[in-house]
Structure formats: structure tokens, C-alpha cells
């Protein structure tokens, strides 16, 4: 490396710090960019290409079928069901986890003994492998599992949460809220601690109650964090996969087939890689439209 650099100096008599920087910058970026190209940039384009093929893993030659995959998507009932499930999932999870996280953060931000313990407790689900939490919840949700025995104490009839098509998706949603709310709580907590105390003091002088302080100072001041939490929540929910794979395998009767899971199924169970790529692209389109809409109508900081 060094000799190359010296060579460069010799070659360019009028070499300069700018040229030198450029030279090093390209060296530094070479490997990262190569990896990014292979595993991010090229795949994005490649994915588009695949989606126009009837791409089969074991076939020696792939068949170009122009937009037939996309045509099939628009007549595919399960695809619509997957979109519906994903949307329901997102609508159910994002607001609740955001509010819960804000609530927890607000409670935690009071002067309370054992804050570190509670923070750790709330955060642990977020750092645990999604496969692990999913498996634990399969046990909890099973017909004779923990949830039903607790509900039984209050006289509720046992329900097989994951094989009942009416409750399967909701069960996974609850798991998701349980895992992520602690994570986002920490984000909110950081946001809350960044609010200058003087604002609260000023509000107190003007006679604002605790509740008014919460709605008129806390909520607007953590808006950038809220934005971040909502965006991350949306992205996470739109791509939920692990829980579905472990807990319900998309069933019963596709009640929990989400978009990501459907992409996976098509590509790696039915080996229809072209069709899978096409569904992924449609999904990506939907996610991007939602983010654009969100950016437009719910900007991070309107002030």
C-alpha cells in the first residue's frame, strides 16, 4: 500500500493532498463498496430481472416470461390475503407498541427506585432471539399452555390461540408488541431525558398540571423520536417473518401468511424464484409508498 502511494506521488509531480485523499478514500472504500455492490446494489437490480423470469432453481435455463408473474400476482388470492394480513398486523402493532413504549418510558422517567432493573426487564425481550421468544410463546399459546391456564382462573374457555384462524394473527401481534415495546421504550427514554427541565419548570409556573405537561410538552418534544419509532415499527412489521415461520408456518388456512413469509414460501418452498421476486418487488413498492406518504403527512419535525 505504502509503495503504491509513493509511486503515485512520484508519478504526479503536482500531486496534492486532494489527490492523496482521493487515493486513500478509494482504497478504504474498495472492499466495503465491493461487498455492498455484490450484496445490496446488484441484488436490487437483479431482483427486478428475476421477476420477469420463470426462474427455477434446478433448471439449467431460465425462461423469460415478461410480466406474467405480475399478472399472476394480481389474480392471486393468497397474495391479497398476505397483504391484508400484513396491513392488519402493522395497524395493530405499530400504534400499540408506540403508545406502550411512550407510556413505559414516561413512567420510567419518574424518580423511581430500581429503574435499572425495570429497564433491563423491559428490554430483555428485545435482545433475545426472535426464534427463542417465538418458541416460548408457542408453548404459552398452546391449548393447554400458560395463557389458557391463567385465563382459566378467570373462567375463560381455553382457546387454541395459534390454530384458531381468528386468533392466530393477533397472537403473533401480541408477541411482537411484547418484544419491541421495551426496545422503543429506551428510545423514548433517551428522548425524554433530552427535554430540558426548564420547560417543565416554566409550565409549572404557568400552572400546568402533570397531564397537561405530558400532552403539551412531553408528546410534542419527543416527536422526532416518535417518528423514528413509527418508521422502525412500520419497517419491522412489514417484514415480519421469524415469528410466522416458527409459530404458525403461515397457517392456519393462511391466516398468518404475511408478505415476507409469502415471498419466502414462493421462493424456497415452491421454488418459484421469479414469482417470489415479483412479490417481493410489489411488497417493496408498497412499503416505499407508505414511507413516502408518512414522510409527507407526518414529518419528523414540523417546527
Amino acid at each position, binding site marked *: 500500500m505504502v509503495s503504491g502511494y509513493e509511486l503515485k506521488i512520484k508519478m504526479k509531480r503536482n500531486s496534492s493532498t486532494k489527490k492523496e485523499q482521493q487515493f486513500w478514500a478509494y482504497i478504504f472504500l474498495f472492499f466495503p463498496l465491493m461487498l455492498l455492490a455484490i450484496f445490496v446494489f446488484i441484488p436490487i437490480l437483479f431482483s427486478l430481472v428475476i421477476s420477469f423470469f420463470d426462474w427455477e432453481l434446478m433448471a439449467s435455463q431460465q425462461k423469460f416470461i415478461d410480466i406474467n408473474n405480475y399478472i399472476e400476482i394480481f389474480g392471486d388470492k393468497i397474495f391479497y390475503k398476505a397483504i391484508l394480513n400484513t396491513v392488519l398486523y402493522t395497524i395493530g402493532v405499530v400504534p400499540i407498541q408506540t403508545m406502550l413504549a411512550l407510556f413505559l418510558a414516561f413512567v420510567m422517567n419518574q424518580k*423511581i427506585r*430500581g429503574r435499572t432493573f425495570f429497564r433491563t426487564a423491559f428490554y430483555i425481550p428485545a435482545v433475545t*432471539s426472535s*426464534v427463542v421468544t417465538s418458541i416460548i410463546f408457542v408453548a404459552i399459546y398452546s391449548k393447554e399452555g400458560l395463557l389458557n391456564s391463567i385465563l382459566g382462573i378467570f373462567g375463560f374457555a381455553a382457546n387454541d390461540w395459534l390454530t384458531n384462524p381468528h386468533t392466530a394473527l393477533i397472537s403473533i401481534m401480541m408477541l411482537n408488541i411484547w418484544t419491541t415495546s421495551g426496545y422503543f421504550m429506551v*428510545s423514548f427514554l433517551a428522548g425524554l431525558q433530552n427535554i430540558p427541565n426548564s420547560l417543565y419548570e416554566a409550565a409549572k409556573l404557568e400552572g400546568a398540571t402533570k397531564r397537561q405537561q405530558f400532552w403539551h410538552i412531553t408528546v410534542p418534544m419527543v416527536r422526532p423520536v416518535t417518528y423514528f419509532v413509527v418508521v422502525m415499527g412500520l419497517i419491522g412489521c412489514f*417484514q415480519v417473518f*421469524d415469528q410466522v415461520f416458527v409459530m404458525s408456518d403461515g397457517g392456519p388456512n393462511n391466516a398468518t401468511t404475511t408478505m415476507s413469509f409469502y415471498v419466502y414460501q414462493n421462493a424456497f418452498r415452491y421454488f418459484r424464484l421469479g414469482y417470489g421476486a415479483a412479490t417481493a418487488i410489489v411488497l417493496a413498492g408498497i412499503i416505499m409508498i407508505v414511507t413516502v406518504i408518512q414522510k409527507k403527512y407526518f414529518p419528523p419535525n414540523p417546527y
Partner: protein
Amino acid sequence: MRAIKIQKILLLTILCFGAMVYLGPFIFSVIVSFSDNKNLINQPGQIVNSGWTLRNYIYIWKDLPFAIWLFNSVVITACQTVTNVFFSALAGFTFAKLEFRGKNLIFGAMLASLMIPGIILIIPKFLIINEFRMINSYPGLILPGMITVVNIFLMKQFFETMPKDLVQAALIDGCNYFQMFWKVFIPNSKPALAAVAIYTFQGTWNEFLWPLIATNTSEMFTLPVGMASLRYELLTDWPAIMAGTILVSIPTLIIFIIFQRYFVQGVASTGGKE
């Protein structure tokens, strides 16, 4: 005064209840994993009354390829975390402190790629790795995770807060740009490096979709993939499965408790900025 006291008690009650909800499943899983009653899930209320045993852990460890999965997870996580942090820091430094042609273009492309949902990459990534004949191998598992745009972004933001004078001082002291990066900037970015490292560690250790797709044989599985396969292999042998979940969780838990400060800092630093 009394109102404040009542309020405090109320808050504490809420928090304790919350802690129960958040920790309960893990406690449940620990209890089940030590139980010697395979049927216990079928007999509600008897969880605690059953006998205690280490048998489930012994079974998981000795009769299942758990040790191999653990080894795989450790190798992959170690390689990915180290290289990812290194490359992210290097690229972040380059974008933050060096001027070069095409900088804005490259950085713009990277930012744009953040907008693309990851699911779109899975199929082409699989096909590309397959072209390299790397499916079901360590390189196939490690390479795609060696660089993350978000980490580059975080490191860039961090390096931008460091004064430009340091660059010039190092230049005059006779550093080349790599020495400058390695001897001046890296030693001064421990908190950022730790946050990125811990994030990467956690993400890699828990990563499921890619190893699921990129591995075929049990001896290449990582812990999460192995665990997921146990779900169907052990079926309702819940004590054994729960023993597995506990074993998988312990490393993350240890890391989390040791580095909690950095975790929280990391969340705060990513959450604060958008």
C-alpha cells in the same frame, strides 16, 4: 404529600406488573426447562409442582448437535462483528473526513439503498451466493453480513463530530491516512465502536432468515435455525425445547448485561437522529 406517595405506589405497581409481563415468559421457560415432567404443559397449574432435573439440558447438549450450532454461531458472529465494525468505521471515516470524487454519488446510493426493504434482496442474494458455490458454507453465511449501510452511517455521523484539526495534526505528524484512521480516530471512538459492535453482535447472533436460507445441513446451522428445527423435531418435548431456548439466550443476555450502557447509548443515538 400523601397524593405523591399514592402516585409513587401506583407507578411502582404498574412497573412491577409490567416486569412480570415482560419477564414472565422467560421465568416460565426456565421453570419448564428444569422440569422432569414431559406432560406438564398438558396439566395446567402443575408446572411448579413437578420434579426438577438437569436432564433436559444434558439431553440437548449431548444428543443434539447443539454444540456444533453454538460453534457455528460463535464463528459467524465473531467474524461478522469484527469485520463489520472495521469496515463500517473505515467507510464512515472516509465519508466523514476525506474528500474524493464521487463521494456524494456513492453516499447517495447508500442512503437510497436504505429505503429498499431487505426482503427484496433475499432471492438475488441467495442466487448470487449460489453462483459462488457458497451455499451451506461459512463464507456464504459471513460475507453478506460483513457490511451494513446503517453502521457506516452511524460511524460517519460519529466521526463528523471529531475536529478536523485532528486530521491535520496527524498529517503534519507524518501519518498516512490509514495510520491516521487506526492510530488517531479509532482509539477515540470506543463508545461508537462499542455501540455498533453490540448492535451487530445482537443482530448476527439472532439473525434467522439468511442462515435459514443459506444452510442446508444441520452441521451448518446457527443456533436460531437449529432451534427452529428443534421445534419440529422435538415436537412437544417442551422441557427439552425450553432448555434449548435458555441456552441460546444466555450469551446475548450476558453481553447485554455487561454492555448495557452501550446498548442504551446506541438506541439513544440512533433514535435521537433521523
